[in-house]
């Protein structure tokens, strides 16, 4: 649905667990970087920045490594407290 929005400026999507915890992500309705990749392919829009939230602090390092490995320059992990103005 977001992919069909004509003037989309930014997209927010959660990624909670690292790839090795795919079972937990599936059971709890969250995403891993590998699952995110599939969603991003459906999303398209190569020029829209994508902000990642809901990262579980226990897996922050693993997630950062796995998200970097996706080699997608649109992705940025949010720390919390950021302000976006449009």
């Amino acid at each position, binding site marked *: 649905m977001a992919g069909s929005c004509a003037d989309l400026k930014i997209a927010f999507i959660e990624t909670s667990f690292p790839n090795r*915890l795919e079972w*937990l992500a599936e*059971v*709890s*309705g*969250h995403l891993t970087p590998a699952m995110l990749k599939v969603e991003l392919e459906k999303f398209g829009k190569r020029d829209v920045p994508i902000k990642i939230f809901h990262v*579980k*602090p*226990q897996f*922050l390092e693993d997630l950062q490594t796995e998200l970097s490995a996706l080699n997608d320059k649109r992705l940025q992990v949010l720390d919390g407290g950021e302000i976006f103005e449009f």
Partner: protein
Amino acid sequence: MSWFKKSKEPILAVEKKNVKMPEGLWTKCKNCEEIIYSKEIERNLNVCPKCDYHFRISAHERIELVIDSGTFVEMDAEMMPVDFLKFKDSKSYKERIKATVKKLGGGDAVKCGEGEIEGLPVALAVFDFSFMGGSMGSAVGEKITRVIERGLEKRAPVLIFSSSGGARMQESILSLMQMAKTCAALAKIRAEGIPFISVLTDPTTGGVTASFAMLGDLNIAEPRALIGFAGPRVIEQTIRQKLPEGFQRSEYLLEHGMVDMIVRRQEMKVKLAQILRVFTKN
């Protein structure tokens, strides 16, 4: 002279035998309304064997179910509610506390301590709904905060089983401030990467839902638990619309992304151990 005459003796009522049924032998399930032998429900961990309805259980029973035998050490057991505001409705708060303590034997609506689940240490808080509806007053809020801080100190995951009607109205703003206090304590453990697992049991409502109970790294619910902020009747009256079937029940919340998973009581300990291993990399 009468026109009609009784030719036979009137039929007499059979003398009623006074059968005495011991109280509590049978329990009517609140969900399927089946009459079930109480011992059968107890053997099934207080879950209806016919429809899987999870009956409410005490904090003590809950601890017995999930914590390794002999590992639970209670903390702040002596902490009691205090009537700061000299609050009185149909009965004074002081009297209510006295009556509840007399009935349940001390403490407050939450039992806190440390223990182990399959050998993994946890800082644990378990609500007891039978103590003034599991409401959160200043003593409950303080106990929750302390158990979170114990988790921080020992770097042990924090596990809270909620079952509460919300903030304790008899303590007014003093109970409301516990919402902020407990959330602030959780922010500290989050910054340190210490996991917090929240288990929502029937019912988890009001200020407890609106504060720490929904802030778990994982929010787990028991089947068919009522979880919400305001009750369905209040919402219906406010928005003047009929609410959908199963609204505010665990299954509805799972479908709408408000809880992460539903775990049956029989599987709770195993599932918690599995999750704790994942979150602590054990």
